């Protein structure tokens, strides 16, 4: 902190030699820079909106999680009871389990395929640029459209699109999202289809930052393509990996829309995730307090994960 304060002063001391005397200038600036409230005027719209739509909801979520929320009857303080309900509830246990499976499946799948895509499509040629843009399209397609499209592709009869492809290689027909045994995998595959091209773009940005001289040197040393990837490329992408991991894991934990639209938690609750359950508790069954407790726990999980990776990165950098 002290270093930060010392810096501007030092810079200020250097400057006046080229302009005018330091003392009057300093005073003029503070006059001309406007009143103390000028910055607050510029910040006001943002602050009001953040208070209304981020900070108050967050405080509300925390207080609600300790209350039995009864519209028109007044809320009852119930202490940790909602958390007890969440942690002891069978439905929540399986929802959390499903959320973790989806988060891990989509994160790992998207990163592995995204890295493969990035490696295959790295380059300057026009054709590769076109291929990259085409492969990236799923990311900018609205999630609701992705879900409707895959619902139709996953049609469980033999003439469904994916089933007819499976039929070509002598497999299927699969029930996909309609079969409790395959519903989770189907949701994960749809998530990877949209997540992998996103990861690809970030990996490509990371690949562009790798020193070409290292590849050159590796070639001179007679390294194979595989060894170049292993010893030059992957270490160069280390920070990209940790960032993508955090981003994808958070994305996975908060998964809602694709599950809501593809299966709405079914069949037989086989794809019920934390957010779809919270949504049902909160808005369909009006158990707002329990829903809020679930949301707070989900937020804590996200926070712990983010901090954990940050600490890990710091330690490695140091």
């Amino acid at each position, binding site marked *: 902190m002290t270093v930060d304060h010392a810096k501007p002063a030092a810079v200020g001391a250097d400057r006046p030699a080229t302009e005018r005397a330091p003392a009057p200038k300093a005073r003029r600036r503070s006059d001309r820079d*406007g009143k103390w409230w*000028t*910055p*607050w005027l*510029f*910040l006001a*719209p*943002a602050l009001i*909106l*953040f208070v*209304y*739509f981020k900070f*108050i*909801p*967050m405080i*509300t*979520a925390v207080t*609600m999680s300790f209350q039995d929320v009864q519209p028109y009857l007044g809320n009852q303080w119930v202490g940790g009871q909602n958390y007890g309900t969440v942690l002891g509830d069978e439905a929540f246990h399986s929802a959390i389990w499903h959320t973790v499976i989806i988060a891990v499946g989509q994160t790992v799948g998207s990163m592995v395929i995204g890295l493969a895509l990035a*490696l295959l*499509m*790295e*380059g*300057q040629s026009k054709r590769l640029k076109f*291929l990259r843009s085409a*492969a*990236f*399209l799923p990311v*900018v*397609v*609205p*999630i*609701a*459209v992705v879900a409707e*499209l895959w619902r*139709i*592709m996953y*049609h469980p*009869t033999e003439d469904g699109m994916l089933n007819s492809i499976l039929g070509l290689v002598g497999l299927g027909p699969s029930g996909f999202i309609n079969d409790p045994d395959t519903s989770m995998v189907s949701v994960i595959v749809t998530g990877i*289809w949209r997540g992998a091209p*996103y990861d690809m*773009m970030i990996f490509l*940005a*990371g690949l562009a930052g*790798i020193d*070409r001289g290292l*590849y*050159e040197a590796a070639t001179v040393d007679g390294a194979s*393509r595989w060894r170049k*990837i292993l010893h*030059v490329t992957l270490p160069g992408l280390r*920070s990209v990996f940790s*960032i993508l991991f*955090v981003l994808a894991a958070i994305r996975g934990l*908060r998964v*809602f829309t694709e599950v*809501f639209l593809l299966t709405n938690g079914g069949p037989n609750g086989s794809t019920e995730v934390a957010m779809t359950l*919270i*949504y049902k508790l909160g808005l369909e069954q009006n158990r*707002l307090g329990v829903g*809020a407790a679930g949301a707070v726990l989900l937020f804590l999980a996200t926070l712990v994960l983010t901090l954990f990776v940050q600490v890990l990165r710091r330690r490695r950098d140091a």
Partner: protein
Amino acid sequence: MTAANDSALGLDAVKSPGGRILKFVLYTLLLLVFAGPLLALLVSAFNNVSDPTALSVVPSSPTLDNFGIAFDLGVGMYLLNSFLVVGFGLLLQVVVSVLAGYALARKKFRFMTFVLVAILATLMLPEEILAIPLSLILSDLPVVHLNLIGSLAGMIVPLGAWAFSILVMTEFMKDVPRELEEAARIDGAGDLRIFAQIILPMCKPALGVIGVFGFTMIWDQYLLPLLVSTDASTYTLPLALRTLRIDTNVTPGVIMAASLLALLPSVAAFLFFQRSFVRGLASGALKG
């Protein structure tokens, strides 16, 4: 430097016949997997299919009927709602973010770090988690006691609090040289003029980034509109897709036609502003 060392795999340099065939097969497969489903969507939207279960890959009987039926089902209104939300929402988001960015980047004041940290912290706060309390607050805004549930305004106003855009603007505005500002100040310009005539025109690249990102983010939104809308008159197009599907008379062709209308704006935004998009993606993620 040889082409072989221009990328990690150096595939551009592979020229042998076998290698070329392998590359062709790989790239075709990639294209089929990631763009194929979207091609099926496109073809089905313009194809008349009697089969209620399947998508078309070949346009066997081209038609515009799907769009006609979709518009009969109110897709025009849903599309208008979507455009209203994205238009006003993006405008609000950009205005709020550039104003806040100016204060955070160009001013020094007490509690600045605190404000910055508080705004940044919301980046880690997924909107899904705030969904339920947010919907309660929208039904009765504290102090002003307005009920925004069931109105497009309820989907638009919360979009103004978007930390990513403030962050991008703050970072960018910090880099505008002090000398420009001081020269204007000596000429007697106030903060508003400096902001509008000096700083803002220098920030076009950053405006491109937050514009294209904000657009695709708002267009993609699902949960907030779901919580705010109470009946079909305030559905955005992505929300309406689910209600179209529930009607059993609606063929996949019609759903795909509506889906095509729902994806065109954000795909177009990406294709036209690809450079801004990729830059924002890389900087946003790599700063993380």
